């Protein structure tokens, strides 16, 4: 039983290390900015998840206490990684793209990241009904 747990913890650690290094290597290797967004947000998050699983298993099997802190960190990271990626993609749209290079925005005439203060004023004026006398 000890050997099985040892093998599992070691396997989790090696997998996590490989995912972590692949994520950071992708960050310096890939050519396009939006391709570079993929490597750290997915591979590195998975790598950290592997380390945390290995740590939980190690504590439960060898240190004789059950530790749930790692679950909190995993949950937090898995919740915040997509939000971070969304913000970085918005920064890319804001700095590298113009209204003409973006694809169609569906029902609207442009994407909200490219809003100017005049656009916001016009939209709020459209949404509020005119005051009745």
């Amino acid at each position, binding site marked *: 039983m000890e050997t099985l747990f040892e093998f599992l913890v070691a396997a989790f650690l090696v997998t996590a290390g490989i995912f972590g290094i692949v994520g950071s290597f992708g*960050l310096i290797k890939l050519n396009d900015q939006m391709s570079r967004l993929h490597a*750290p947000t997915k591979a590195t998050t998975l790598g950290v998840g592997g380390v945390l699983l290995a740590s939980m298993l190690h*504590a439960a099997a060898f*240190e004789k206490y059950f530790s749930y802190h790692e679950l909190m*960190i995993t949950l937090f990271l898995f919740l915040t990684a997509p939000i971070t990626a969304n913000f970085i993609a918005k920064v*890319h749209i804001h700095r590298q793209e113009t209204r003409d290079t973006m694809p169609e925005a569906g029902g609207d005439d442009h994407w909200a990241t490219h809003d100017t203060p005049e656009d916001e004023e016009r939209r709020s004026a459209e949404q509020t009904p005119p005051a009745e006398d």
Partner: protein
Amino acid sequence: MIESAATFAFACFALAMLMNLWKVVTAPDVADRILALDTMFINAIALMVLYGMALGTEIFFEAAMIIAMLGFVSTVAYARFILRGNIIE
């Protein structure tokens, strides 16, 4: 077996952090720099949890949790500053 696997993971994440540092220095645009800094935070969490596991103590998990929160907040604040010119409107 666990010792050698942990050493391998330490080496991988340390190398990953060095690559992120290289990217922070040579990034062509500010979006890449934000991304590299965020990845550095995540790799720091992994290194801290690994260190706590190697020492067999629990006290590093609180530090890892705080670093996770600080990393998220600082990334969002940086991106928000680039997008809007200020952070809390």
